[in-house]
């Protein structure tokens, strides 16, 4: 009996360990996105990586000021002034002899450059010193020469997310407000279109007995088998013929014509509502349209919510549709705009790209938290009824 108990205990510990490890793996990409979005650019490219965005402060002339970190020195150095170049350098003490900097130039000859020693840096492996730059350089002829060398233990780091990255990313994306507006317009129109057209069709397929209904419904189900690429080209040509390429119309007009999947989902729900209800209303002289509007729709609010939510998500996330139909940057949606931004600025400004990605992903995630129950029910519904 005791053995069994220990066996179960070990099992539970293993279960939790696996679940927690999995959670870390699944959350890491999102955490990394947000962490990168809040960093200054140099921290995005540091190795080892910086996990938590921070700011460095150094005490210079008795004043604590925000600085950027430069290279680290681990051997005794001098800060020297080269009068000819009118610039300061940090050089290892071993390279300076009798006021001259000894070094090899490009052609391999030994040069002895007269320099003034300004400062002695007693750096070592155990007590490294760090070059620091002011966070905001004062513009002017001396701009390149603004730096100090300080002992690394005098450098303090403070957690400091850069919220301004979001503002800068929005500015860098240029038409961000328009992208957002277009996306919201499309979300609104497609949600309204889908909810009304599919609930009407679902009503016709479930609450009215008419000849051939089941056969037609089978046709509707069969259309779900057809992959989008099959109809993509002719639909594109059709919208082109209408002169709608480059406008938002191709992206929402279709939603007013009841997609089979949503009709199927709503029909399943409509079928669960007792028939007597509509029969009683019919006897009272209610028209079908009124039964649909005043009885069915209010009763089916949860299912309608699921359809609306899924459609919103689909429109918000859709990439292929906007890619095909939109030609002018000002009509882009957020998804397309983000991809456009990446193709223009990709590979360098990772902090802005991640900030922009966060802005595109966050609304969906927030929406999920507010509608969690509807969401999970909806997904389970699609699976169980399928």
């Amino acid at each position: 009996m005791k053995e069994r108990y220990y066996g179960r205990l070990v099992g539970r510990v293993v279960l939790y360990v696996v679940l927690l490890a999995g959670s870390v793996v699944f959350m890491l990409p999102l955490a990394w996105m947000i962490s990168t979005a809040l960093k200054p650019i140099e921290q995005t490219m540091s190795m080892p990586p910086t996990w938590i965005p921070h700011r460095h402060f150094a005490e210079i002339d008795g004043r604590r000021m925000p600085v950027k970190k430069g290279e680290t020195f681990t051997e005794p150095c001098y800060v020297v002034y080269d009068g000819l170049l009118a610039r300061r350098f940090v050089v290892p003490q071993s390279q300076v002899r009798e006021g001259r900097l000894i070094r090899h130039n490009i052609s391999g000859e030994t040069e002895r450059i007269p320099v003034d020693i300004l400062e002695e840096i007693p750096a070592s492996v155990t007590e490294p010193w760090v070059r620091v730059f002011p966070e905001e350089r004062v513009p002017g002829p001396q701009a390149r020469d603004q730096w100090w060398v300080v002992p690394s233990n005098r450098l303090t780091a403070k957690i400091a997310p850069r919220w301004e990255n979001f503002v800068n990313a929005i500015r860098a994306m240029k038409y961000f407000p328009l992208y957002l507006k277009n996306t919201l317009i499309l979300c609104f129109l497609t949600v309204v279109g889908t909810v009304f057209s599919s609930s009407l069709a679902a009503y016709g397929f479930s609450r009215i007995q008419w000849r051939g209904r089941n056969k037609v419904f089978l046709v509707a189900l069969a259309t779900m088998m057809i992959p989008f690429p099959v109809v993509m080209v002719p639909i594109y040509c059709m919208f082109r013929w209408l002169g709608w390429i480059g406008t938002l119309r191709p992206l929402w007009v279709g939603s007013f014509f009841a997609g089979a999947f949503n009709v199927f989902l709503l029909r399943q729900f409509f079928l669960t509502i007792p028939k007597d209800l509509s029969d009683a209303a019919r006897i009272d002289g209610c028209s079908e349209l009124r039964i649909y509007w005043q009885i069915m729709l209010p009763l089916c609010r949860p299912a309608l919510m699921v359809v609306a939510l899924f459609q919103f998500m689909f429109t918000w996330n859709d990439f292929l549709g906007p890619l095909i139909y939109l030609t002018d940057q000002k009509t882009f949606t957020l998804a397309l705009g983000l991809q456009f931004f990446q193709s223009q600025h990709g590979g360098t400004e990772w902090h802005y790209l991640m900030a922009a990605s966060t802005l595109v992903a966050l609304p969906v995630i927030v929406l999920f938290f507010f509608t969690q129950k509807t969401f999970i029910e909806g997904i389970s519904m699609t699976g169980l009824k399928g």
Partner: protein
Amino acid sequence: MTRGEWRNLGVGLAFISPWIIGFLAFTLYPALASIYYSFCDYDVFSRPVWIGLLNYRDMFTDKVFWKSLYNTMYYAVFSLPLGLVISLLIAVMLNQQIQARPLFRTIYFLPSLVPVVASAMIWLWILNGKYGILNYLLGLVGLQGPDWLADELWTKPSLILMSVWGVGGSMVIYLAALQDVPRELYESALIDGASAWHKFVHVTIPMISPVIYFNLIMGIIGALQVFAQPYIMFGGGGPNRSALFYAVYLYQNAFDYYEMGFASAMAWVLFIIIFFLTWVATRTTRRHIYYAGE
């Protein structure tokens, strides 16, 4: 038919009229038109010209076509079983009596919600050859990570990895099915002295088999049509076209080269492949699927 039946037919058709119009304009006509286009040379700007089977012949002799088909199959063969098994595994773990189940469920589900463009950006950054966090983490355990996005051997595994990250949707479907399995079945299995593994194989799997089948079919359809991730991350197809997927090549033919006829032919071949694989999946699993109430 009686007058009432005629009336019902009229009202019924009126209610489904949005669907009828949509069916005619966005499914039936386009499907027929694309069959026709697939036998034509058509560039949108001028009228389609009938060329018979030339598009299909070109396609079957086009090396890039075969490469894109190979890439897509490679992706499907790995991402599909991996996705099915991992999402089921997570769902089974979450179905145990554990603390904070809703929290765990949210954590595993959340990545599947992230818009595909955003997740493509995240993974471009994670898999970055120089500053990528994944290779840093691999380095911590002593592994030298490959240059995921620039090495033609690793572009497809990168996309498979991404697909596993987004299994939350099917996980939730499994979880819902698992919670519907009647407790009595487990209790009687326990009385019979069944081990945990036996319970899983002989009770759980049969009871949720319709949902496994659903996820399998959805997975086939989705994997063969995957477009946005490879398109965003690898543009024209990545190193040596190693990430040129079927749907991406189809898109390129249609909208980069304006080979609408060729693209339509590709679309129909895709349809036939999907149809065939779905049929095979249905045939081979049918005997093992248990439908309660039948």
